[in-house]
């Protein structure tokens, strides 16, 4: 009964399922600027979906439409098949959509632990007075939040900095803490806005592993924007390519890589 030395083929913890998010004919204008024009694509449950494109292609606008920060002039968003009239950040949070930001948006003067616990706000009911007086409900919620936050701290391997003020941390770790805060809200869909921007190779590798681990362990559906093509191709299940606000490609990394429109957009083409 000897152990076999070669690992068996990896099976996915959460197999890719039905569409959870369907975007249909989304157009977004700022005055005369067409940020997005007639974009349609969907996101399947438990998949890692990337949005890529050159600078100014409309990637962040797309993410902000999903996250409810921008309201598109045209088009519909369906969540689990249900049409949403107008998405707002609050509504997105209640639906289970979490996010991180391109320019880290943490509470700089608070500790790592406090930042992550702040991500639990959605799940706390105690009012100001209850918290101030440490009444039973507030205490119970705090204990629960702390447990959940500690689980995330362990998951992201940031035990050694849990009591450190965020502003004193290097950039790569701040990004990890931000991921932790987003995870604290237990999102079903996580929007990551350039999670690896400005990182060195090692930090990028770490971040990739955490994104894959989160997807594998919690089954979180991920929508991420990324500049680094190599990273995107390695970790995504499917990729949407935008250029000048239009969709020019959609498919698996291999399909996208061999798509002539995409090659032209990235390498430039004589018009």
């Amino acid at each position, binding site marked *: 009964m000897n*152990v076999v030395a070669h690992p068996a083929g990896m099976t996915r913890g959460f197999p890719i399922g039905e569409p959870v998010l369907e975007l249909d004919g989304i157009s977004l204008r700022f005055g005369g600027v067409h940020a997005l024009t007639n974009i349609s694509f969907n996101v399947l449950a438990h998949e890692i979906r990337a949005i890529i494109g050159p600078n100014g292609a409309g990637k962040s606008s797309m993410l902000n439409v999903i996250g409810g920060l921008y309201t598109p002039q045209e088009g519909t968003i369906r969540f689990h098949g249900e049409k949403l009239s107008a998405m707002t950040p609050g509504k997105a949070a209640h639906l289970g959509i979490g996010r991180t930001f391109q320019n880290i948006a943490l509470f700089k003067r608070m500790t790592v632990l406090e930042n992550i616990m702040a991500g639990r706000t959605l799940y706390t009911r105690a009012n100001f007075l209850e918290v101030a007086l440490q009444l039973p409900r507030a205490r119970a919620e705090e204990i629960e939040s702390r447990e959940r936050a500690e689980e995330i701290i362990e998951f992201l391997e940031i035990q050694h900095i849990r009591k450190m003020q965020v502003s004193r941390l290097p950039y790569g770790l701040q990004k990890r803490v931000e991921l932790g805060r987003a995870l604290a809200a237990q999102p079903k869909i996580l929007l990551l806005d350039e999670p690896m921007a400005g990182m060195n190779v090692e930090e990028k590798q770490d971040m990739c592993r955490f994104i894959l681990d989160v997807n594998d362990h919690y089954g979180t559906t991920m929508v991420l924007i990324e500049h680094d093509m190599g990273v995107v191709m390695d970790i995504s299940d499917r990729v949407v390519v935008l250029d000048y606000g239009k969709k020019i490609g959609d498919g698996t990394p291999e399909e996208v890589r061999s798509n002539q429109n995409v090659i032209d957009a990235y390498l430039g083409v004589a018009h």
Partner: protein
Amino acid sequence: MAIPDLKQDTFAALLAGQAGRRPEAVVLREKRRGIWHGTTWRALADEAQALAAALAARNVGFGDHVAMIGENRPGLFAAMAAAHQIGAVAVPLFPDASVEEAAQQIAACKAKVIFAENQEQVDKMLRVLPRCPSVQTIVHDDDRGMRHYAQTGLFAHRALVEEGRKAARPTGPQAGGDDPAFVFFTSATAGSAKAVVFSHRAMIDRAHAVIGADGLSDADTTLAFLPPGWMCQVLFSYAFAMVSGLCICCPESSDTLLEDLREIAPTTLLMTPRMLDAILSRVTYRMEDTGGISLSLYRRALATAERTEAGHLSGVATGLGDRLRLALDSLLITGPLRDSLGLSQVRSAYSTGDALDPGMLRVFRAIGINLKQLYGTTETGFAVAMHRDGAVWPDTVGPLLEGVEISISADREIRVRAKGMMSGYLGAAPVADGWIETVDLGHLDARGQLHVEGRVDSLARLVGGQTFAPRALENRIRVSPYVRECVVIGDGRETVCALIDIDTLAVGKWADGHEIPYMGHVDLASQDQVYTLISAWISEVNEALAAEPAQAALQVRRFALLPKELSAEDGLLTRTGKLRRAAVTLRFATLIDALYAGGSVAILDHADAKAGGAETEGLGLKIGDARVVVGGTGRRAA
């Protein structure tokens, strides 16, 4: 109820005794998700029994070897205890062992079962398997990332415990006191690691010797942070707990060690000179950072404490004024410092594994930490000699421990005989006459204190005829907070030169203070100002050496700063941070030749550049000169 006096010469009997006497007392603490959780003696005994039953069901029994690889964790200690329940031999490996080393060691002991801490270790063990046909089962403690592993024979620690709870009690033969309990691999300062076998009785005997000498009890707490593959750490954790009932705390990770130390505030602690050096470096540069009145008060407090302790050792009673000052200093200066280091509750701390500089020992004692040296080798169970409370002569390693006999051979090598020594090397005949050679030089003085002067094979001789122990000289140089490690060269040469590994943190801080821009260790180690800083320190050491006629010839003429930290991964240090002298001199041969050739720059050849990391390839390495005092009067540049 009278406690039945079990024949407690095995770890299984000791565990049963502790669990019977103090079932609800905590034996292990571990920080999980930010909170310290305790394991009681009853829980440990239950877990060990269940694991033992599961192992017995897998045909593991008396005389079989059970390996464990990982950091100090409750699961690791439970695995050791389980092996001892069924008369099996526990083989703890160094967690950072390479696949190559692990394969050799597992094959050497023919382990049937491996307890691996986490996915990283399991991956390593899976790569080891093809070369170790004896292995039937791998057990992993941490489930993270393990869901995808479908190998047969791979089990979760928890699942095995559950299985064992339902299984029948093992009926195989039990171990007796003289049967082997552990196999340890030596840290291999020179050559490859040797497998050392210890019987239950020998380990327990050595634990008794230290515990008896220092009065450790079940009220004590220790933090186990050194690698469990090191015999001394197992003695100070598992064996001490079984014998005295003390509580073992496991740090959350190596990154959180200092914080964990503060939270636990252990009463007894095992340390290595390398770690003490790191702590002292931190304290010194922070103190120097404060400057002004705080710094002068701190220095005065240390001076008073060192003076009174020296006085006490030479039989002078401490005066009332000094006693008042000591009390005041302890309250206002050293007390808060001890607290910030997490050492406020320490009754006894032990330094072992390498020679500790007497100066460093004095400073720690002046801070108010009862630091003692413990002397021994893996083969001699680490408990040969130890300082005793109130009589710590810093230049010795203390008197012999109970049950130890010593003989000094004609060429001054220390040989040891005691009950608690190794049974022998694995697979070799037992030591014939009971005398074990330590490969260390030394002598006993009139007070019965043992002096250790360095390893036999590391003793160096200058062309002029003077012999010296490089380690003692290196330790003097390492006293500076800016020097992390130092290697002196001089064997077969006319003069002494040194390779210096700077302390990145402390030198970096110094560079910040002097507005010297730098990028990383390599850049820092090549700055002229840093050379000047180190040169000034070495000149200071040279002055002190010149003051002692016997040492004057040992002044360091020239030195070079190493572009990369010496590390265990590069094979230049052992796992416990001890210098591998032969490997270092071989690796930096070109640089050493350049030191003696007289130029001011050495061009690293390919092998040296590789040792210094890829980024240093083709780099010209500077060589620094130090001031040398000649004939005790005039000075000249070397």
